[in-house]
């Protein structure tokens, strides 16, 4: 079996992830931040250590300004719905996932002005177009770091610099880059970073979070939910400090124990090495697919400006037919269609049929790439 669907969720995970989940379940098991006994304290330590590891990975100084959520979608919803009000203007790109587009369309109905800056047909964005879109009432710029359809990286550092200069908050959707491409909260001028745990950070599903930069005034972002936090139990009013402000109810501590092991794996192996290896695999995949005359590739040329995501179509078959044949005849798992991102497919000209998407991880091999290229060659030859 060949697994090329890592942009949806990574598989396999490093063995340490499963070991950490088992260890927590067997030997710790306590509820973090709720009780004074040592199992509860040990669980709270795991939560904190996971924040510390994330802080190291994203180069941010205060681990308590990293909060856990279910996934990037929840983190994005938290910022958009907690921050934006009727009359505010928000800028985004035409390459966004529905995790951004749907909450924005919902807010638009409540009087938020949504401006979508078009990207080129290879999914690239000109930072100057963002600057031109800024208005007096612009409250937020939100961009994905890399597209889940084409893998194209957006120029977040330049846009972040523009946002900082104009004193506008900048939210980055790092679902496709956290763990696989270097992210530096300081250098990349990011105020808020939404990330998911179950993709390139190798955690289980149901883990994710939000990094809240030092410049962000948390009083301006209302929590999505309130409730028990284990802190200030005497009060019926919700706490106003981090991380408790945005973390109500018992955390997914079993998942976070696994996530912590996934991040440690990345820190140990080194993000530069992971990136290089994925880039080499992606280069090989792209050059292999390019050799097939029936194949149309999307996204930026080369791999300097993309993560390990490759979308393509063929001139003679639909993406869904190709996907079915790859699964049933060649044992290759990939994702076809619109990838929850109709805006991106409109931008690159593949709406409504979509594309076939191969998304790799550092656990894929050159042999798998060769087999997959051969499979696509055979499938397109049949007709």
């Amino acid at each position: 079996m060949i697994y090329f669907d890592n942009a949806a969720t990574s598989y396999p995970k490093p063995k340490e992830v499963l070991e950490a989940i088992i260890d927590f379940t067997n030997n710790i098991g306590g509820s973090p931040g709720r009780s004074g006994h040592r199992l509860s304290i040990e669980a709270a330590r795991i939560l904190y250590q996971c924040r510390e590891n994330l802080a190291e990975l994203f180069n941010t100084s205060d681990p308590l300004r990293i909060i856990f959520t279910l996934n990037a979608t929840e983190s994005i919803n938290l910022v958009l719905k907690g921050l934006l009000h009727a009359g505010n203007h928000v800028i985004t790109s035409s390459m966004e996932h529905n995790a951004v587009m749907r909450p924005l369309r919902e807010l638009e109905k409540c009087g938020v002005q949504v401006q979508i800056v078009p990207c080129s047909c290879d999914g690239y964005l000109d930072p100057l177009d963002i600057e031109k879109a800024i208005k007096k009432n612009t409250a937020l710029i939100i961009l994905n770091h890399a597209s889940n359809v084409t893998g194209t990286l957006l120029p977040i550092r330049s846009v972040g610099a523009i946002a900082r200069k104009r004193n506008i908050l900048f939210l980055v959707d790092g679902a496709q880059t956290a763990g696989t491409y270097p992210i530096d909260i300081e250098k990349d001028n990011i105020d808020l970073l939404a990330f998911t745990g179950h993709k390139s950070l190798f955690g289980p599903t149901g883990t994710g979070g939000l990094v809240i930069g030092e410049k962000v005034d948390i009083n301006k972002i209302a929590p999505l939910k309130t409730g028990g936090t284990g802190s200030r139990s005497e009060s019926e009013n919700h706490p106003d400090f981090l991380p408790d402000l945005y973390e109500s109810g018992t955390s997914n501590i079993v998942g976070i124990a696994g996530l912590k092991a996934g991040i440690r794996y990345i820190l140990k192996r080194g993000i530069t090495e992971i990136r290089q290896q994925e880039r080499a695999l992606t280069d090989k995949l792209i050059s292999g697919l390019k050799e097939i005359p029936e194949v149309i590739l999307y996204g930026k040329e080369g791999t300097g400006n993309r993560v390990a995501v490759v979308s393509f179509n063929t001139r003679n078959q639909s993406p869904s037919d190709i996907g079915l044949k790859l699964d049933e005849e060649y044992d290759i798992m990939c994702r076809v269609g619109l990838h929850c991102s109709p805006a991106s497919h409109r931008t690159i000209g593949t709406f409504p049929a979509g594309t076939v998407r191969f998304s790799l991880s550092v656990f894929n091999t050159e042999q798998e790439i060769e087999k997959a290229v051969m499979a696509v060659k055979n499938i397109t030859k049949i007709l």
Partner: protein
Amino acid sequence: MIIIMNRKVDGMTEPLQKSVVIFYSTSAAIKAESLAKKQSLTVKLIPVPRHLSSDCGICLSFNSNDIQRMEGILNYNKIEYDSTYNL
């Protein structure tokens, strides 16, 4: 008052006074524990003594001699805390 006896090398004993820092959240207590350990302070997370707070959380105990270092760590790292108490 809890007095912990600390046996010295020369055979003499000397009382070792303990203090605690009380925080607003468990996360802050864990953060302080992590930072204090990095500075080689002897610390331990314990349930907040009932006579100090009605909250159900944990606090960080340390040797009272280290009070200045502990407050330095808390202030330098901007960790909000309620107060420190001698036990």
